[in-house]
């Protein structure tokens, strides 16, 4: 999704730069659009299943809440001192809770702004919410950038605390 999106961006850049060809997929605009509009279903279907299960089972409240500002400050300070503990990997610390919640919200914005670009006539409320067609492209780009940032930080964290990989895959 990201790599084909970069190629679509290159066809009519919003900002003063282009992405190198090596980071893109699809070969040309038409190919990139085919990738983007095929793989969007993977994201949408996965996202819907994830959200449905999380809300239906109540996991979302157990895992991500409560978020206390006091604990957040403590966790941030511990992280800076390099002392953030991971005794119980099944419990998210406050930074994790915020990071995961924000990326979930980001993907919702990503899909909503994409829908506003793709179907700007059929979804007028969404279009207005994004500040019009042209602005929806900027929102879409910003949401993509945040997702890339999250992925990079996420990978870095797994590299620093490799034992989390197992629990991520097994779920236990």
């Amino acid at each position: 999704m990201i790599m084909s999106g970069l190629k679509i961006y290159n066809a009519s850049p919003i900002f003063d730069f282009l992405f190198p060809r090596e980071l893109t997929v699809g070969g040309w605009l038409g190919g990139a659009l085919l990738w983007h509009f095929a793989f969007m279903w993977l994201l949408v279907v996965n996202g819907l299943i994830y959200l449905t299960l999380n809300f239906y089972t109540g996991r979302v409240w157990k895992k991500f809440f409560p978020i206390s500002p006091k604990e957040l400050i403590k966790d941030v300070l511990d992280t800076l001192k390099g002392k953030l503990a991971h005794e119980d990997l099944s419990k998210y610390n406050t930074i994790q809770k915020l990071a995961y919640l924000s990326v979930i919200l980001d993907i919702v914005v990503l899909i909503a702004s994409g829908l506003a670009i793709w179907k700007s006539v059929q979804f007028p409320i969404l279009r207005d919410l994004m500040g019009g067609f042209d602005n929806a492209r900027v929102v879409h780009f910003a949401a993509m950038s945040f997702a890339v940032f999250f992925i990079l930080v996420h990978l870095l964290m797994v590299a620093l605390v490799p034992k989390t990989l197992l629990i991520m895959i097994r779920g236990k």
Partner: protein
Amino acid sequence: MSEKKIFNPHEKEIIKDVYKGLDLPTRRLFGKRALSLGAISMLTGCTLTNEDSIEEALMVMSRFNDGVQSWLFDPNKMAPTYSEDMLTKPFPFNAFYGEDEIRPSPDNFKLKVSGLVQDTKDWTLDELRAFPQTSQITRHICVEGWSAIGKWGGVRFSEFLKRIGADSTAKFVGFRCHDDYYTSIDMPTALHAQTLLTLTYADEVLPPKYGYPMKLRMPTKLGYKNPKYIQEIFVTNVNPGGYWEDQGYNWFGGS
């Protein structure tokens, strides 16, 4: 003298000698390398067929998306309209060729009509101008992502289709253009209230760069679905495809 002649007399002996010289592990390694070489050549074969099947799968998804989009399309939803002061000036020229390659349509031009219609008579520009005229200021959205606001005026396309007795239960309306461009649209979009067979741009006769003598303007579709220099309009149940659509752009191409 050919190479074969040089090597032929001693070929077998040389091979035997070299074989003797190779110790077992080296031979095994050589065998392994030969195997992996074979594997690589097989892989390239695989890659080729994979690319074809990937493209096929992507096209299947694009057809699926055509279906989703026609299901989403609400004929009563109108594209936003804008005020005169929001017009993009100058409105960009866009085609599959450069602006210096425009081939202007002749002045004695007549619009041809064919396919699933009752009246296949040709239409002069004056006859089209005699229809009730409407104009609207809408946003043209290009598949590349840029957009521009323009003012087009002309005949409501549904009115024209009614006049020629087009079969409104047919699936497609196709367009053949003077510059060899071609495209086609779904009947619900053809009948949409904002779909205009335009004869003017900014209240002036459509200039050559914007598609004289006529352009079909649909604010519910991307730019490449809006044909210029239209010569023939036909109604059909067989999808006529399009210049860009046949190269991979999504056929429905609607917003």
